[in-house]
């Protein structure tokens, strides 16, 4: 019963009786020459026996490593520090691959009101983005907020299957999209659950043939892909209202979120691609007898209205397909001026850090807003697991089936909605 190294603090893991056994064995080894005469004497002898072999506690390498990680808040400091440099890990856009790059963050500038974030990230698929944003989230004790910023990105291999619900998978081509977005916005938050925002951005989108073997120009032209041949800059005006009473916010179990956005894209050079758009995104979370089981429902619709003699450029059209909407289809599988997406998920808690989910997605795109109805919907269903906490989902793994786009496996950071 004697442990191989009784001075090792971690021997508690390996020897069940621990020091007590050592003490008793030690006493036995002393023989009967000096018997204890009182209970106090017996206990004192036990302690004296232990005193002969006390040693500093030892910890395993794993325990030391975890202590260091926790005490030094290593992951927080490295991955998401409040100030200073940090690595940007994740994604720059859907399908762009795993992104990595440097980031820098300062908060409390200019009298404590301004937070600054600058970051850059790239992927092995040669996607990259640089972003600089100054936010003022604490104006009027948090009831007013504002931001200004600029973003430059290059997505060299965006998939395109044509415009409309009848686009064909075999027409898949790629195009490259570069853009510089400069702008700012401001808003008010009259209630914790309500925010009203307005913003203006300058956009300079440019498309090219893409990095893959089959560039977009091989199959499509400016008539079938509006905006392909001629490039222009846009001024985008946007107002939105966001009602958000989800609880908890990051991984909702009840409540809802309703976002209404009106945007106007003003073609500044050609007068050919100006349009307006209304987006409505409604989410509702209904506990099924208990908050451990939730029915998560989403309706998202988008309707665009191009000005007379104008069109909506294909690269600014709403899309369906991919890990966040129609999960049984490839990303950007469908696109057009108008869109409808319906999603339903039944989520249940398996244990504290893992939820299961059964989901059903349906949606369509249409060139005319009056065609946005419940007929001819594309759909899929699937099952998934979400890993995270009440504050959010950091990883989800899903399998999507039942679509004419085949089976799809989804591994994605963050929640679907």
């Amino acid at each position: 019963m004697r442990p191989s190294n009784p001075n090792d603090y971690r021997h508690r893991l390996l020897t069940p009786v621990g020091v007590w056994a050592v003490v008793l064995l030690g006493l036995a080894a002393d023989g009967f020459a000096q018997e204890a005469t009182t209970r106090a004497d017996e206990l004192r002898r036990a302690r004296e026996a232990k005193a002969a072999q006390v040693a500093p506690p030892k910890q395993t390498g794993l325990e030391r490593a975890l202590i260091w990680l926790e005490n030094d808040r290593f992951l927080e400091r490295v991955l998401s520090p409040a100030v200073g440099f940090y690595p940007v890990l994740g994604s720059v856009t859907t399908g762009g691959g795993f992104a990595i790059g440097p980031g820098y963050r300062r908060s409390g500038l200019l009298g404590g009101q301004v937070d600054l974030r600058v970051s850059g990230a790239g992927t092995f698929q040669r996607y990259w983005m640089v972003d600089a944003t100054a936010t003022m989230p604490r104006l009027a004790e948090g009831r007013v907020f504002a931001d200004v910023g600029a973003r430059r990105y290059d997505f060299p291999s965006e998939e395109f299957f044509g415009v409309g619900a009848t686009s064909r998978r075999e027409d898949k081509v790629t195009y490259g999209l570069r853009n510089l977005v400069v702008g700012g916005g401001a808003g008010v938050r009259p209630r914790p659950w309500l925010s009203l925002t307005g913003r203006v951005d300058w956009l300079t989108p440019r498309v090219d043939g893409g990095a893959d073997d089959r560039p977009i120009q091989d199959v499509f032209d400016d008539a079938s892909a509006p905006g392909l041949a001629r490039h222009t800059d846009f001024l985008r005006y946007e107002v939105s209202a966001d009602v958000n009473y989800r609880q908890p916010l990051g991984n909702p179990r009840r409540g809802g979120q309703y976002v209404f956005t009106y945007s106007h894209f003003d073609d500044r050079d050609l007068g050919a691609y100006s349009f307006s758009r209304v987006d409505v995104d409604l989410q509702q979370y209904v506990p099924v007898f208990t908050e451990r089981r939730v029915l998560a429902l989403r309706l998202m619709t988008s309707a665009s209205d191009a000005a007379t003699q104008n069109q909506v450029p294909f690269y600014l059209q709403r899309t369906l397909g991919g890990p966040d909407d129609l999960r049984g289809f490839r990303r950007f599988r469908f696109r057009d001026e108008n869109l409808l997406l319906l999603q339903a998920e039944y989520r249940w808690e398996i244990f504290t850090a893992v939820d299961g989910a059964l989901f059903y997605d349906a949606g369509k795109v249409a060139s005319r807003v009056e065609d946005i109805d419940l007929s001819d919907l594309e759909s899929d269903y699937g099952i998934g697991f979400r890993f995270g906490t009440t504050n959010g989902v950091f990883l989800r793994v899903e399998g999507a089936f039942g679509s004419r786009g085949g089976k799809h496996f989804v591994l994605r950071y963050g929640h679907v909605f």
Partner: protein
Amino acid sequence: MTSSTAVSPRFYPDDPIRVDDDTALDAGQPVPIEGSNGFDFVQHTFLKPGDRRNVRAVNVNTIDEVPDSSWFTNRIGVHEMTPQEIARGPNQQESLNIDGWPIVQEKSSGITPGFRLTSPDGRLYQLKFDPPANPEMSSGAEVIGAAFYHAMGYNVTQGYIVEFDPELAPIREGATTVDMSGTTRQMRRQDVDRVLARAARLPNGKYRALASRFADGVPLGYFAYYGTRPDDPNDVHPHEHRRELRAGRVIGAWLNHDDSRGLNSLDMLEQRDGRRFIRHYVFDFGSTLGSGSTVPQVPRAGNEYILEWGPALKSLASLGLYLRPWMRVQYPEVPRSIGRFEADFFDPLAWRPEYPNPAFDNMRADDAFWGARLVQRFSDEAIRAVVAKAQYSDPAATEYMSSVLIKRRDKVVAAWLTGVNPIVEPRLDASGALTFENAAVTAGVATPPTAYAFTWSRFDNDTSADIGPAEQARSTQPRTTAPASILQGVDFVSVAIRTTHPDFPRWEQPVKIHFRRSSEAWEAVGLDRGYTSSP
């Protein structure tokens, strides 16, 4: 402590000891033990550390009680305490006014926002604030939990409900905070504002907080709920076999102390008469009752480990159709200061901490019985006095908390006071009259038994064996008379008491009591409830 070698007498002259002097040897210079939340969770969830044999608690004395030590000081278990005494707990002052006390450090451990301040006499205090959505919740739980644990006998630090006025709190030159770059730097007013942004603000603009006074001595980190400290010569009883730690499960269940784990303990190196020794504290009661420190307790708390395979697999396989019973609980609409706390669904036997605790796992029915007796000693009046200490602004919160604690107490007592043959307080007078109590009957959780059966024997202390023929007797009352033939000419006698009750077949397990002749009467020197399985 009841162990002995073959040649040792069963009972020493000083049995039953009331004090285990585990400060006897100089502790030298032990080093602080740091802990990792992640490691602690993984280790206890997957590895089951410690000795898991079903053995009697090793630190009880010969009459099955816990002697005073650096771990535990018998209080309500051995003498009456007034409700006021109980409510006062470890505090040496009635109240605390911290206006003008300088901030010397931002609290760096745990999830609750706070500061460290120094009092005018140089003592260090830690402030912990309530979450904005649940004012009074965490601080209320802290003072209630501390008062109960203290009254039972555990070492806890002083804690006071205070109001913190940031306008009156200077930041001392040299006060430190650790920013997210890992750099320790001088605290600034913005740091104070940042911390207070996560704290509940009172209508008067101040912030209610718990002010905990740092314990005396040098901090040495935490104690584990298994093994012993290898650098403390006085620590010879494996913690998973210490009764007061095993029975912590009973108290944890009553108070919903789901965060009762090693990392929420504290070892302090003290010095007395030139000798250094370690005192062991339980602390951080912010996650007790309905409080989860920064949020209300999650519904799972107290009902299931963070990771428990059985229910998880059932839930997975049934696609959520299998609903754990605790998921069905409808918590009543109560003041936000309560958090999430109830008594109707509460099942003491099913209660669990956040993840397995070796000492709790080792708890046997005799340990639970000991813990339940402590819980049973808190009267309704005492519970109300302790709850009043939380100073809830809403009388409905005070009433609700009191009523839930009373109801949970009754459930704990009913569950665990009946798990063993509940014979207590045996007395044998000089005339041979034996009296005792049935703790379950006294507590009102059981009807009087059908009968008590007694087996009397003469006892040879040197050989630890009964000698001569045994004598049998029966009684329907908790009293009888020892046969004169048994008492004559011996220094030790034993009586095994078997209790017959139709509702409690476990009471058939006899309690064996040993008496030693003294100058005036007979002194109970041994009480053994025999083998007791897990409750």
